[in-house]
Structure formats: C-alpha cells, structure tokens
C-alpha cells in the first residue's frame, strides 16, 4: 500500500510568486493534515480536513495560504504571494477516523522563498 506522497519534494521561488503544494493521502484515510516546520522551529499544525471539509484551520498563518481538498482525496496548499518567512518544510499527514489513530506523514516539501 502506498504511503502519503507529496509533490514537489523541493521548490525554490522568488518572493511574490505563487506555489502550489500537493499531498496524496493514504487511500481510505478521511483525515488529512498539513503541518509546517520553519527553520529552527518546531513542527506546527496548519489545518485539518475531514474528507473535503476543513475541520480546523486555526494554524493557517494568514490569507495568503489556501488549502483545498477536492472530492476528499488529494489536497493542495497554495501560497500566494509567497513571502520570505514562508520558507520551510511542509508536511502532510493522513489518518483514519479516531483521534488515537496514527497519523502517517509524507516526506515533506521543502519550500525556499528567495
């Protein structure tokens, strides 16, 4: 069974440009999470989907970030326009139904904004 996949693995963009990150969760996992690790800081929660609905987006830093999960399958996270402080590693995770179910993480997308 395939794990959580993320694309691209790396992205280098100029400040002001737009970037879209994609996450494909494990098949059958209704819960999908986005997390981010900025250099030197801890991994922080961004948002949580249950199927196609946003359950919790309390961690989204500002309105330059837009997450979608069309049809309850894959998810995209768009940053527009990107700023220098958006640089970091963006992780996606998926899990089954319960709070105690393991969250399986993807390898992350390293975003560098120049």
């Amino acid at each position, binding site marked *: 069974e395939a794990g959580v996949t993320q694309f691209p693995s790396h992205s280098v963009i100029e400040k002001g440009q737009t970037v879209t990150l994609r996450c494909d969760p494990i098949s059958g996992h209704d819960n999908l999470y986005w997390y981010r690790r900025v250099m030197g800081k801890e*991994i*922080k*929660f961004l948002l949580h989907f249950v199927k196609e609905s946003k359950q919790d987006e309390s961690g989204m830093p500002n309105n330059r970030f837009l997450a979608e999960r069309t049809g309850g399958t894959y998810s995209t996270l768009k940053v527009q326009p990107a700023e220098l402080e958006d640089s970091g590693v963006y992780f996606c995770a998926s899990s089954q139904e319960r709070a*105690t179910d393991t969250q399986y993480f993807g*390898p992350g997308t390293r975003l560098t904004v120049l």
Partner: protein
Amino acid sequence: AQSVTQPDIHITVSEGASLELRCNYSYGATPYLFWYVQSPGQGLQLLLKYFSGDTLVQGIKGFEAEFKRSQSSFNLRKPSVHWSDAAEYFCAVVPAGIKAAGNKLTFGGGTRVLVKP
C-alpha cells in the same frame, strides 16, 4: 499554556551505548503521547504511542518509552544504539478525550541524535 518540551536539541552517543531522549508536556490532563523519528530525506515515522494502561510502551526499532504522570514526562529510550538511529526525534501530543475524528499533533522542538562509530 499547553506545550511540549524536548530539552536537548542535540545528543551525541557512541554506537552500542544507551540513549535516552527527554520529553515533558504541560497540559491540563494527560494527553495522548507519541514519538516520531525523521531520518534524513524521509518523512516522520511513528515509533510508539501511549494512550493509557501500562506506562512502559514498546515501539519499533527497539525503542521504548516510559510515561510518568508525576513528572509529566514521556522519555524515549534505546538500550543499544545503532548507526542507523542517527536521526531527529520528535515528541508529540494530542489532547485526550476529544471526540472529533482525528486531531492535531503538537510537537516538541525535536532532538537530533548523532551516532559516533
């Protein structure tokens, strides 16, 4: 405020020696507790988790962790470290008793482990 603390940013250990990574949490009630590992170029992999019951939890790759309520700690241990254990380790929590499906993890800052030959 709710928080997770990993006091050690870096630890260097000799191959074959024992390893202990510290994790302390500050929550109103005992949360669900997790340890994840991130090897170079890889995603985070779950080592073990604690919800209730036996306070000594066995995980994968020969790791174990002990929950101590009185100390609000969940320290990770391995009796004999292998070179492949060089990685970054993260303690994480989810508030217990939440009925909503799934919940966000709150992470500690991570501990990077270097293994000397």
